[in-house]
């Protein structure tokens, strides 16, 4: 399988976030730079989001990287996934 490009990473993360929001009965498009808390994700949803991102990309986010700044927006998560894939 070809390595994920940053664009396809972002699209997949938008997909994960959109599914999560849909199950929270929030049905609208997510902007990559939008604050996900403000978009309607609770702290519990953040657990689901991190685990879903790990499952989607078959990776484990290092403990040190589990911090608000890395999961604040689709763009931030994309950057994190990209750096884990490169480093890992």
């Amino acid at each position, binding site marked *: 399988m070809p390595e994920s490009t940053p664009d396809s990473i972002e699209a997949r993360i938008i997909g994960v976030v959109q599914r999560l929001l849909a199950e929270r009965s929030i049905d609208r498009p997510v902007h990559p730079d939008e604050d996900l*808390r403000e978009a309607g994700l609770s702290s519990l949803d953040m657990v689901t989001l991190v685990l879903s991102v790990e499952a989607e990309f078959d990776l484990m986010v290092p403990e040190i990287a*589990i911090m608000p700044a890395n*999961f604040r927006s689709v763009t931030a998560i994309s950057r994190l996934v990209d750096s884990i894939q490169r480093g890992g």
Partner: protein
Amino acid sequence: MTHVLDRHAKRVLDMLAAGRGGNGPELTPRALRESMERLAKAVDLRSVAVASVDDRRIRSLAGGMTLRAYTPLTAPNELLPGVVFFHGGTGVFCSLDTHDGLCRALAASSGCRIVSVDYRLAPEHPFPAAIDDGLFATQWIADHAAELGIDRERLAVAGDSAGGTIAAVVCQLAQRAGRPRVALQVLLCPVTDLASESPSRAELATGFFIERSTLEWAKALYCAGADLYDPRISPLRSTDLVGLPPAQIHTAEFDPMRDEGQAYADALSAAGVDVSYVCHEGLIHHFYCMAGAIPRAREVLVPVGAAIGDALRAAPPRPIVAQ
């Protein structure tokens, strides 16, 4: 006590912390219910095989109630010990679905039939609706035991968190009424006292899966002004624990509800009830529903279930106290 968090439990807590702050959504029953359903899909056990899972609608106090029966792979066609199970969730959230993995794991490890009860939730149905439903369901299951493939003499009640409250209270009410007969009570991280704040609730008030603020919010919705010393809300406050069924009580080291679980074990023991008590080191509240993210939870559920099966298979028929 190790005083060290299981590293996977810590990851879950770190993820929760990463999601706090900023302008998060307002806490509403609907939002929390939806979040827990979604979380369950991400962290639950997905691969525990059982022979069958059957939903059954029964007529109840409020019109209708769903019972979900789990049949283990071992001897699915025999009369087996049964466990009436009440899910947790403060009486405000969670469902048959959020605790599906836990029930599967318990069916598999105990070799018993597990019947999970879809009792009514607050704020739509505040206290005592959940307790009324719990007692009704336990009686119904006892009355229909043979039909469900359950040995009526070997029927346990079990629950986690607020479901543990229901299980404990059902035992107290059934003991007083003389029916139905309950052979064993199994309480996982139970809530036993809403009338005061234990040391563990104070020490672990924030950052340990369920926040004090969330607990207070849910308590207000669930109790809706009822007396917090009512033993049906705070079973630890009952002054009459003599003669209750044997108890298996489990707590988690980093759970705000740890001390009240232990206090209930101590109180039952002091009243002469046969109690086994285990505090699971390094684990957090709700660990048993997050085995997909906390591998040790799956390991712990094996002996938890095995002990249920062993106790029920060895249970002598309990005398009928009153008719």
